[in-house]
């Protein structure tokens, strides 16, 4: 039988607010346990939540970016369950009245564009963390993360393969960073994924029973977990069994998913509107303000890069995946006086390689866009060759000097003066008459010898095109 995979995703994006969603405590990552949890975060009796307006603005921004309906009136609800790292015994979330309604996102897989529906996105608080190591058999609780604002983004079950799921997650990952609402750091848990997977016979309209795989924190794990889960479900069905609705965990070490809890054990969360918080009202003024604040979105930027800079699709995709990279690129192009294609090569090539090697983000690039642009300008006007430019870039990496200063100081300027080159060629030919004879006798390979000698003499600064042209004509005489 032919099987079709159906995938829906829930993504938790940690909003990049300075303070928590209902308290003034800091959201910075990595502090000593429980140093960033105030009385509200601890759920001490008598404390009350006060909504962080920045979180609301971020949610609205996201909604606008996916063309979603923004609810003029949304409501926080309490999701009740007991867990030691959930201080109040309920999570303040949104239930039947989320802030962001139906929207959509386009993904590209194998050259095809597909539209994925986003069912909703709602605001909620994160829980703390339970620490099971190093506490002499007891469990430690760190509430630094408790109350960190999350935007939970729920997709429609529109994806049909692991590749589509990954493409969707990548698109969202790019988008939230573009919007500056989430740092996208998957290792630190700022961007987490739950994947709902089911299979059904091709042609069947009804969905199969789904399993939810929780907390996938890398694109690769999503791909592998989905692939594994699809295989498992098909195996179960084909061997006469039934898929049960349950929550599963992906074990990256063993590359398998295993059952965490089944639906029968699932909690009844007893949602009800939170009486401590007023409904969130979104005014048309706020909507307008947020709309005006939207940056150019990745898809638009990619198209513009193709048109404005004449880049191919691949290059414009790579350059626009990160907003910081796109900004760097455009700045560099400006400083290079419009060498769009050449700058693209250098940003995607030498610069990215250097950044990757040193594990540095482009925003912290040791070579600024201005300096890279200046370097490319000198390649374009033939002051230096591409090969010399690599040396210059290396020198720039460890200093604050501009390309021009380095070229000047190191005397790296290309020799294009035909008179000077001719003099050097004449001298070389006079000193190597035997090789000249050999060349003239038809051993054209000797050309390499002359080029090599001259480059050595000029320390690579001879303009290669000029040099070739002159050598050829002289040797033929």
């Amino acid at each position, binding site marked *: 039988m032919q099987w079709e995979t159906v995938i829906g995703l829930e993504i938790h994006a940690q909003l990049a607010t300075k303070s928590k969603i209902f308290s003034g405590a800091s959201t910075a990552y990595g502090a000593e346990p429980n140093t960033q949890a105030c009385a509200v975060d601890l759920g001490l*009796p008598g404390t009350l939540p006060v909504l962080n307006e920045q979180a609301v603005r971020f949610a609205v921004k996201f909604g606008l970016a996916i063309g979603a309906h923004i609810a003029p009136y949304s409501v926080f609800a309490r999701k*009740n369950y007991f867990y030691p790292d959930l201080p109040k015994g309920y999570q303040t979330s949104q239930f039947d009245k989320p802030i962001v309604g139906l929207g959509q996102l386009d993904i590209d897989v194998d050259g095809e564009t597909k539209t994925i529906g986003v069912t909703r996105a709602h605001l909620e608080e994160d829980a703390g963390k339970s620490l099971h190591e190093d506490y002499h058999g007891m469990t430690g609780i760190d509430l630094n993360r408790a109350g960190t604002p999350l935007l939970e983004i729920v997709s429609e079950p529109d994806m049909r393969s692991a590749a589509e799921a990954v493409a969707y997650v990548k698109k969202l990952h790019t988008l939230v960073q573009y919007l500056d609402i989430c740092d996208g750091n998957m290792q630190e848990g700022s961007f987490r994924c739950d994947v709902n997977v089911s299979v059904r016979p091709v042609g069947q309209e009804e969905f199969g029973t789904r399993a939810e795989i929780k907390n996938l924190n890398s694109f690769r794990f999503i791909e592998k977990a989905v692939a594994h889960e699809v295989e498992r479900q098909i195996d179960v069905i084909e061997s006469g069994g039934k898929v049960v609705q349950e929550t599963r965990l992906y074990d990256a070490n063993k590359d398998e998913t295993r059952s965490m809890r089944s639906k029968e054990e699932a909690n009844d969360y007893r949602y009800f509107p939170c009486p401590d918080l*007023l409904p969130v009202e979104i005014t048309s003024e706020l909507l307008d303000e947020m709309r005006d604040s939207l940056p150019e979105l990745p898809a638009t930027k990619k198209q513009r890069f193709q048109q404005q800079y004449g880049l191919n699709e691949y290059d414009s995709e790579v350059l626009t995946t990160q907003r910081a990279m796109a900004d760097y690129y455009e700045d560099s192009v400006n400083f290079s006086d419009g060498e769009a294609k050449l700058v693209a090569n250098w940003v995607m090539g030498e610069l990215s390689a250097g950044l990757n090697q040193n594990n540095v983000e482009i925003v912290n690039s040791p070579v600024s866009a201005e300096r890279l642009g200046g370097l490319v300008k000198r390649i374009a006007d033939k002051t230096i060759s591409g090969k010399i430019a690599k040396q210059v870039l290396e020198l720039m990496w460890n200093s604050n000097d501009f390309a021009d200063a380095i070229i000047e100081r190191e005397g790296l300027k290309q020799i294009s003066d035909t008179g000077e080159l001719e003099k050097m060629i004449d001298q070389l030919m006079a000193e190597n008459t035997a090789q000249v004879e050999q060349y003239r006798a038809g051993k054209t390979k000797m050309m390499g010898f002359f080029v090599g000698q001259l480059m050595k003499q000029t320390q690579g600064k001879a303009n290669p095109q000029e040099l070739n042209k002159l050598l050829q004509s002289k040797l033929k005489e």
Partner: protein
Amino acid sequence: MYNKSLKELSASLRNKDVSSAELSQYFLDRIKYFDGELNSVITSNEEAALLAAQQADKLIASGDSGLLTGIPLLHKDIFCTQGLRTSCGSKMLDNFIAPYTATAVSKLEQAGAVMLGKTNMDEFAMGSSNETSFYGGVKNPWNLDTVPGGSSGGSAAAVAARLAPIASGTDTGGSIRQPAAFCGVTGIKPTYGRVSRYGMIAFASSLDQGGAMAKSAEDAAIMLQAMSGFDEKDSTSVDRPVDDLLANLGDSIKGLTVGLPKEFFTDDLDDDIREKIEEAVDTIKLAGANIKEISLPNINLSVPAYYVVAPAECSANLSRFDGVRFGHRCESPKDLEDLYKRSRGEGFGDEVKRRVMIGAYVLSAGYYDAYYKKAQQVRRLIQQDFVEAFKEVDVIASATAPSVAFTSGEKKGDPVSMYLSDIFTIGVNLAGLPGMSVPCGFVDNKPVGMQLIGNYFEEARLLNVAHQYQQLTDWHLAVPAGYEQEV
């Protein structure tokens, strides 16, 4: 001294007839002398109080003082007080010392009031007799065999016995007004959102409201004035200026229309009490007010609606008491579930458990629509009834409670009968309106309270009517036998 009004006490302080330190010591001595029997104060703040009183005396000496500077008071033990235990009447919080102070308490502190201690209350404010307190019941100073009402029974009994000039209370379904009625004191619960709930341990968040308990409407006005106001730490507090509650106390109530809801004068009401209320209404009429019968057609649904909404909210509000971070934790739990079950099982009393279970039930899948949602719909109907009524009348009057203080233990085993003692007060909380109770006579030597209900944010008008009534009567000045003596 003990029967002096706040204005008189304040004048004595300013004239240096007495210092705040002396005044505080005077009431602390009364507490020591009388409260062994009453059990109205469960935590004394003596040392800190005397220091605060000395500070107040300095302020008074410098001429920089207000009406409350140096005035001793008591706080219901539901208000968090930094450094001083806040138990909420529960074993669960017997060891709890909050690292912050409730906004209402801070405001009174800033006004110069001196906290003598914390008053007993029904556990987590759940009760109408003060019998659910972990610290034992409070006795009603008018008759030691009877209850003081609840849940602010400690504050009511303390003010009645003149152990403090004023005390704070909270009112979720009548918890200021009913004990005020039972103890013969004046109590006001303002409009929902007028007094900040920050630092006030939540029972039912959409109904809870702090307020003032005092000997007279004038004293209650002075206290409420200081407690009220917007607080950015409470999203449900209302950002609107506080009226001057004292400015219009002396105004005539001539021409004012007072509504009597016919649903509040049925057989549920004891005949003796009805008589007292009718007398009080006649007095108000004599003062020039018009009396008009009105109807609140859905008000009879308020008790059932309340006993869905309030437990639902409390079931979530009390989830934080899990033995993990603060409060009671059971001895050597064997696993997480054991920790939860025993910590909560041991820490909470029966009434709290009953309400947490009711609340969890009405919110559970399959029952939400039939109970919680329906109750919220009923709540809107009740609110609408009041809105309609206030198109015709300025103030609504009724009995505060259907009976006078009942005997201790009488209703303890019968929760529904206990719940019905709040039958006249609960609708006011569901609608979020201001309400108060004013002493209006005695039945069998037990105080009777008249409830006055005002329109939203019309505390000033309520207090005006109450004050005018108290100009014509002296029920509020009566002191229970035995407590008139100086100690």
